[in-house]
Structure formats: structure tokens, C-alpha cells
């Protein structure tokens, strides 16, 4: 029989205002096995912990039940408290009477009754608890960063700086991400390429960093400290060790009509290409969808002109297996597809552009060489209308996103300001719902656009854009003047909402990392653990976690790196001792558990058993590798014969809890 102590926490008024804590501690004192029961204002405080420790010694407690907040908050605290008093930490059970009781109930009598029931269930469970010992597993001292944008680059640089090996996997032919496409950065207006390219070069030169460009993560196995990752290095059809990046092939390739994705299709590139001058690695890539040689074997010009003999039309995808201790997701974002917004005429007129397209039209390395020209006729636009919140702040539905994309207010102010600075003869209108500029020097920047640069900010929204006789007829509302406006514009720029990259969802499945309904990665705690995924060993960097501007992304990238460094600097990790354990006598060898195990912790062996009349039977039974098992419990549910059990959460313990609740 256990000697159990019950400790009911008030959590100030969080619990005590809705639950009669005195009644709970008195009622639970009557439960079988309970030798001591009390309540206290803050059980997690030093005094509260001392109280638990003293009572363990005084009463010789063998089990402790704390009725308090969620085990996610303080289970660890109380386990350590008990460990210091000489009790096995796994003899502690938490009854969550805050999140699952006091916070969600209003009626005190009802809440008190429920708190007693939850406490009773925890007591019933602790009766069957057994001391558990945590094992250890080694840590592979190498990190993987998925995504080579500014988030991934900064995370990799910071990890490498601490002396750890780090690999970057980037699906595009070059690292750099969205920031390479941006012209100037707010609120300082410094050139994006000038501050990004040194970091890209640092990555390439750093001995601790290896870049897998034009590669994708194919499979992830394992767990924190011991991930096994398969990386698919896509065929470039160019030998990267030989290519010098001279670019001669990209000039001679006869296939000239390939939409240039770097310029968002505003101009064309060749079938063999280097995305931009500062690409890292600076090697050519053949686009298999357009290359005549690869499609029908007729051409071969690039191989003929290549002085380094780097072209290899027979190159195949390569699969690389690598082990990592930590993985950082830095998959970034994309602007949403605007073709659904018919009212703005995005599909009807080339002069209606997205903000990222506008960025390319203003960029010296862009399709117009940095001169702002209309895509339709190459003429200088005189009236430009910017529309904010296109697809942001919509209440669900197919068309838009429910969240604020956060960066649009600032980049639109930047675009408007740059237009007025470069071309003072242009009239610039910005239609806004709210101008959101919380950030260092952000509001000052927006006010400068209005006050110094004379950008017309209009509170209202554009209702429709109709292309007519080479103009764009814009009909909009001006809510402050309470009138409808009709503007003949030359260009309309849509500040498209941003969404997580499409590769994030399948990646999250591979990593068993959770996501929200918008496909942003979920953090372990929204305030206190913002750069960690709830899945151990998976960290989050940049816009894959939520909309972010560059300074925020860099800050988060550094934070994620420091978490990775903290993990990699350990030689061993304590394992969770709550692992699965099969009862070999009951196991029928069906393999159900092996199939559902997400960690590959279960294997089957043929084992000899003693049969009747001194015979031996060879039976196929499950075996769990406790160093790999993460205690998710999927196997215990899948097992049809009830042979699989989870230590610390055994079927008996759970049934005892259910019985106690239903009593």
C-alpha cells in the first residue's frame, strides 16, 4: 500500500476563487492510501516546495499528488522537489484543477466537485505508479537547417560560430531566399543585396557549414539528438565541382523563352541558368522542363561552350543520408496567389502587379534595370495606386487569410516613398484599412512618406480596377471624406498577403512538428518558448512560424541557433523513462505496433519459449528499443492482444483513473 500525500494549490485566486480548496483537501484525505492532505496558496513557491519535502520526510510518503496547474507548467518542478526529498520523481502525479477545472467553470460547487474527482483519479493512478529510471542517449553534434533564406542563413552562421557542424538544405539552386529579390529594406532604405550577400558568402566560406542547394529533405527518422535525415540532391545536370560560374552557357543557350522565376516571370531566362549574379553556390542549373537536349536529345550547345566540361546530361538525383542532433525549420513564406482577386484585375492587366513584382521592377538587377516602367507598354507610370491588405484579414474562406501579414504596411510605405523620391512627377495613392507600424522607427518612416514625400494615404479600400484604354480605372472609397473616388491609374500595386511556403506542410509531417490552421509551425509556448516546436529537437526560425520582417527574423534565427547550441553542447540527453514495454507472453506477433510506431523503436524477434511437455516453441514477439521509444503510446492502442504497455501510463493505471472518475 502506498503512503500518499495530497497537496492542493490555490494558485492565488486562479484556483481558489472557483474551487473550494479546503473542501478538496479534506475530501481527498478520505481516499484510500492518503496519509496526509493539505492546501497552500502557491505550491510552486519555495515555501510550497519545502512543505512537500518536509511532509515526504515526516510521513514517509511513497507517492505525491499535487492538485494544481497543467503538468506542462510545473510537473518538472514538483518532480525535482520530490527527488531532492529522496522520492523517485515518477511517483508524483499532477491533477490539473486549473486549466481543466477552475478556469473553465463558473459555479463553485460544480468546480469543487470536479476538482475532487480529478484528485481522486490522480490518487488512483499513483497507487499503481512504480519508480522509473531515466536512461540516456548520445547527441549527434551536427545541426540541419531546412531553408536557406535569411532565417536559415543566420541560424546556420550562429550555430557554426559556436563550433558545431551545420548543413543548410535549400530547394532552390541558390541560398538567399526572398531577401535576394528585395530592392531596399525598411525603415533605413539600405540595399537588401548589400547586407545579405556578405552573409551568403560567409555561409559558403565557413568551414562548419555545408550547403545542399537545389536539394530537398526526403525523409526524417529518429528523435532529438539522433535524427536520421535523407536529403534528395536534385540533378542540376551540371557538375558543381567543375562549373566555374562563368555564365557562358547561360548566354549561348538557344532556349530563350523560359519564365524567369527570380523576376517572378516579368522577363525570361534560358533553360540553363544562374538565378542572379551573387548566387551561392554560383553554378549553373539546367531546367529539365525546358532544355531541348534533356527533352528530345537535340541541342547540346551548353556542353559545347562549357570550357570546364561541367555539363552532364546524364546526372541523376542523389540521395544523401546524414545524422543530426537538431533540426531547424526555416522554410519561409510566399505571397498568396492573386488570380482569385478578379476585382483588382490582376489577371486582366499586366500593369496590376504584386508588391514583390513591384520590388523587381524597382531593382537595378530586375527586368527593367531599375527604371520603373509599366509591364504592358514599357512607359513611365504617372499615377500609381497601392492597395493594402489584399487577402489579409479576411474571415477565412478560400480567398484570403484571417491574419494580418504584418510586413505590408511598411513595404508599401517604402515603395510609395521610393516612387516619389525617384520620380517626383508621379502621383502615389495608398489605400489602407489601418496603418500598422509598431516597430523601431517604423511609424516615423510612414509619417515621412506622408509628410515629406507627399504620398496620398487614403483610409478606404479599392472596390474594383478595370483596365480601359491603357489606363486602370480605379474605383475606391474614401471613408474619412465619405466619398467615392475614381482614379485613372497607370499602375496598381497589390500588397498580397503572405502564406507559409507550400513545402512546410509535408515537412511538418516528416518532423512530426505541429502546425496551425494556416500552416504556420506552432511554437512550444506562444510566449515563453517561441523558437521551439513542441516536438523535441525541432526549432523554428523566421516566417515559417508567423509573418515577420527581416530584423525579427534575424533575431528569431539567432534565438533558434542558441537553443540548438544548448542542445548540441550536451554529450547525452536524459531519455523519457515512460517507454513502451511488451508482455511477451501475450504478444501474438501481429506487427500492428511496429507499423504505427513513428520512431522505428519496435522490432520483432523470434524467441524460444517453453511449451507444454518440455517442448520449446519458437514465437515471433515485439521488442522495444527504449533509447528510441518516445512514449507516445500509439503502439499500446494498436495492440489487439493488449500486450503493449507504457511505463508510467500502463493500461491498469489508466483504467484505475477511469474507475475513480466514474465512481
Amino acid at each position, binding site marked *: 500500500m502506498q503512503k500518499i500525500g495530497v497537496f492542493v494549490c490555490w494558485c492565488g485566486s486562479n484556483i481558489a476563487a472557483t474551487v473550494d480548496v479546503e473542501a478538496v483537501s479534506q475530501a481527498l484525505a478520505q481516499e484510500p492510501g492518503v496519509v496526509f492532505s493539505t492546501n497552500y496558496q502557491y505550491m510552486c513557491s519555495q515555501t510550497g516546495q519545502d512543505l512537500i519535502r518536509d511532509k515526504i520526510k515526516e510521513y514517509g510518503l511513497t507517492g505525491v499528488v499535487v492538485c494544481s496547474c497543467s503538468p506542462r507548467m510545473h510537473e518538472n518542478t514538483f518532480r525535482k522537489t520530490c527527488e531532492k526529498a529522496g522520492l523517485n520523481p515518477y511517483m508524483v502525479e499532477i491533477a490539473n484543477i486549473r486549466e481543466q477545472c477552475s478556469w473553465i467553470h463558473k459555479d463553485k460547487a460544480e468546480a469543487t466537485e470536479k476538482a475532487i474527482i480529478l484528485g481522486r483519479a490522480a490518487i488512483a493512478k499513483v497507487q499503481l505508479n512504480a519508480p522509473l529510471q531515466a536512461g540516456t542517449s548520445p547527441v549527434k553534434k551536427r545541426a540541419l537547417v531546412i531553408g536557406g533564406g535569411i532565417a536559415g542563413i543566420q541560424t546556420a552562421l550562429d550555430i557554426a560560430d559556436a563550433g558545431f557542424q551545420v548543413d543548410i538544405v535549400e530547394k532552390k539552386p541558390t541560398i538567399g531566399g526572398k531577401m535576394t529579390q528585395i530592392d531596399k529594406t525598411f525603415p533605413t532604405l539600405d540595399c537588401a543585396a548589400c547586407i545579405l550577400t556578405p552573409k551568403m558568402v560567409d555561409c559558403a566560406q565557413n568551414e562548419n557549414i555545408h550547403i545542399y542547394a537545389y536539394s530537398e529533405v526526403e525523409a526524417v527518422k529518429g528523435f532529438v539528438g539522433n535524427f536520421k535525415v535523407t536529403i534528395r540532391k536534385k540533378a542540376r545536370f551540371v557538375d558543381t565541382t567543375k562549373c566555374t560560374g562563368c555564365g557562358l552557357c547561360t548566354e549561348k543557350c538557344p532556349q530563350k523563352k523560359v519564365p524567369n522565376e527570380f523576376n517572378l516571370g516579368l522577363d525570361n531566362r534560358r533553360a540553363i541558368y544562374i538565378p542572379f549574379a551573387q548566387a551561392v553556390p554560383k553554378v549553373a542549373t539546367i531546367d529539365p522542363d525546358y532544355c531541348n537536349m534533356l527533352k528530345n536529345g537535340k541541342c547540346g550547345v551548353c556542353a559545347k561552350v562549357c570550357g570546364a566540361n561541367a555539363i552532364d546530361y546524364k546526372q541523376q538525383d542523389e540521395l544523401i543520408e546524414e545524422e543530426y542532433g537538431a533540426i531547424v525549420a526555416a522554410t519561409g513564406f510566399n505571397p498568396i496567389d492573386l488570380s482569385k482577386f478578379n476585382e483588382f484585375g490582376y489577371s486582366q492587366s499586366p500593369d496590376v502587379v504584386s508588391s514583390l513584382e513591384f520590388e523587381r521592377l524597382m531593382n537595378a538587377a530586375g527586368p527593367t534595370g531599375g527604371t520603373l516602367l509599366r509591364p504592358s507598354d514599357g512607359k513611365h507610370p504617372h499615377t500609381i495606386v497601392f492597395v493594402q491588405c489584399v487577402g489579409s484579414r479576411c*474571415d477565412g*474562406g478560400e480567398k484570403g487569410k484571417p491574419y494580418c501579414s504584418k510586413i505590408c504596411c511598411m513595404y508599401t510605405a517604402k515603395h510609395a516613398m521610393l516612387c516619389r523620391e525617384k520620380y517626383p512627377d508621379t502621383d502615389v495613392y495608398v*489605400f489602407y484599412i489601418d496603418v500598422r507600424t509598431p516597430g523601431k522607427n517604423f511609424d516615423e518612416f510612414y509619417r515621412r512618406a506622408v509628410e515629406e514625400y507627399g504620398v496620398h494615404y487614403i483610409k478606404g*479600400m479599392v*472596390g474594383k480596377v478595370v483596365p480601359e484604354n491603357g489606363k486602370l480605372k480605379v474605383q*475606391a472609397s474614401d*471613408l474619412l471624406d*465619405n466619398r*467615392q473616388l475614381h482614379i485613372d491609374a497607370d499602375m496598381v500595386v497589390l500588397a498580397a498577403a503572405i502564406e507559409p511556403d507550400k513545402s512546410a506542410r509535408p515537412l511538418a509531417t516528416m518532423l512530426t512538428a505541429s502546425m496551425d490552421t494556416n500552416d504556420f509551425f506552432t511554437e512550444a509556448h506562444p510566449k515563453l518558448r517561441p523558437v521551439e516546436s513542441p516536438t523535441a529537437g525541432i526549432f523554428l526560425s523566421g516566417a515559417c512560424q508567423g509573418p515577420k520582417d527581416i530584423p525579427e527574423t534575424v533575431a528569431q534565427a539567432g534565438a533558434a541557433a542558441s537553443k540548438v547550441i544548448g542542445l548540441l553542447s550536451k554529450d547525452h540527453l536524459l531519455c523519457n523513462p515512460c517507454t513502451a514495454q511488451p508482455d511477451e507472453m501475450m504478444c501474438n506477433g501481429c506487427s500492428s505496433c511496429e507499423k504505427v510506431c513513428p520512431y522505428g523503436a519496435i522490432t520483432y524477434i523470434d524467441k524460444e519459449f517453453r511449451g507444454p511437455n518440455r517442448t520449446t516453441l519458437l514465437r515471433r514477439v515485439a521488442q522495444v528499443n527504449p533509447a528510441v521509444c518516445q512514449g507516445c503510446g500509439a503502439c499500446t492502442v494498436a495492440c489487439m492482444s493488449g500486450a503493449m504497455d507504457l511505463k508510467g501510463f500502463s493500461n491498469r493505471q489508466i483504467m484505475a483513473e477511469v474507475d475513480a472518475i466514474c465512481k
Partner: protein
Amino acid sequence: MLMDTIAAISGVNPRKCMRCGKCSGSCPAYDEMEYHPHQFVSMVESGRIEELMASKGIYTCLSCFACIERCPRSVEPARLIEAVRLAVIRQQGKNHLTPEQIPQLLDEDLPQQAITSAFRKYKR
């Protein structure tokens, strides 16, 4: 009370409006209206429904539903207007004209048939 009626008829929750003005930016009858689509919504929300009911503007809404189509918050301003029009009609006894009132309201462009039917309708 009246607000509840409008909410029940229209099924619209005006609190969902984020004041972007896309409805008024879309409306083809904007200039003909005393109150504009975004104002319909805020007037219903703040309970100024009698003023709306008294306005001729509610009959200039063409029910083209551009505002419904484009509203990013699915507020559906045109449904509110339809509900206000229905509320006017449902005020039994208050929406009747006497035959004596008709001559002052006559428009010379009005078809004879309409005038005749108006007299038939209201003489009872």
C-alpha cells in the same frame, strides 16, 4: 428591439465589419445614396435604424451584391439593406398612403398604369 429584427431578417452580424470600406469602393449606386454601404453597417451596429428606415437611400441599392461578393469579412451589407426595407414594409399601418397624399408625390415620368394601380391600392 429593431436591431434584433434586422439581425433576424438579415442573418448579418455587423460587428464583423472592420471598417475597410471595400463595400463603398465597390458600390455602383454610391453617389445616389444618402447613406453609403459602409455607413449602413455602422448605423445598424450603433442602432440608428430608424434613420436608415426613413432614408430614401435604401431604395437606391440595386441589390447587385458587389458589396457581398467583395467584403473581406463576409458582413454582407446588401442583406442588411434588404432587411431594413423589409422592416419598413412590416411596420403595419405606417407604410400606407392615403389617396390624398398621392398627387403631391406624382412624378410626370411615372406611367399612368402605376398611378392607377396606386389609387386602387390605397383607396381601401
